[in-house]
């Protein structure tokens, strides 16, 4: 794989648009197909592609295991904390109406932050699964 110039060059071209596309899908989720799940998987695909071409060690330099294992619970924590923030504004759990000056903007902020949490967890889980399987030697 190391000598395959075509793959390495193409990957270099694809990686940046892939990450950009992930951001587009993340932020356009309100008005079109998309959201944290899809964006997380696309962003993870970029890291996985990088790992496939340049080796697992190189990918681990970009996203180390220690960071990854903290990101997985951190994303869920973001989600749950947004829900709890609703409780502090006098709403029920996951109530977003009072997060901004009016209910519509409150809902928008709530969903935006929740999707950010979803992105973090999905991204790190996918990369984590890739590391866990790719890092094992053949028995």
């Amino acid at each position, binding site marked *: 794989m190391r000598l395959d110039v075509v793959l390495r060059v193409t990957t270099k071209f694809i990686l940046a648009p892939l990450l950009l596309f992930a951001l587009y899908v993340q932020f356009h989720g309100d008005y079109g197909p998309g959201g944290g*799940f899809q964006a997380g998987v696309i962003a993870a695909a970029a890291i996985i592609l990088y790992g496939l071409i340049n080796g697992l060690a190189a990918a681990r330099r970009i996203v180390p295991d220690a960071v990854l294992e903290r990101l997985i619970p951190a994303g869920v924590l973001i989600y749950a904390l947004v829900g709890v923030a609703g409780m502090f504004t006098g709403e029920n759990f996951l109530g977003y109406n009072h997060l901004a000056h009016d209910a519509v903007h409150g809902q928008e902020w709530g969903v935006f932050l929740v999707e950010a949490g979803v992105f973090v967890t999905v991204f790190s889980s996918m990369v984590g699964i890739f590391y*866990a*399987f790719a890092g*094992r030697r053949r*028995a």
Partner: protein
Amino acid sequence: MTLIDPLIALATRGVTIFLMVAGLYVVIARGNMVKKLVGLSLFQSSVYLLFILPGKIVGGTAPIIDPAFEVYAHPLPHVLILTAIVVGIGTLALGLALVVRIREAFGTIEEDEILAREDAVRVERDE
């Protein structure tokens, strides 16, 4: 409303039932642990169709409110199934991880072979 819509609905129903039964059959009949998980995934996919199908409204568009449209698809089944798909992926990933560990521990992923080896070990120990 065209003639093709009811035909599609009928075909989807058939696919739902086929996936349900075929998936369950694979889980029961196959000894290979990866194939079992494939069957399990098929079985779960049938549920996705079961929920999604009634959410489709003929002529309806994606449920994003806009003055240009009047008929929308029912959003709730889609949300439910998005959740179910994530659960299914979690199950599949965990199942495959277990199969990898089983392969490392036992040297095979055929259920019959593992059980046969375990029995052999037990007989040896008893003797």
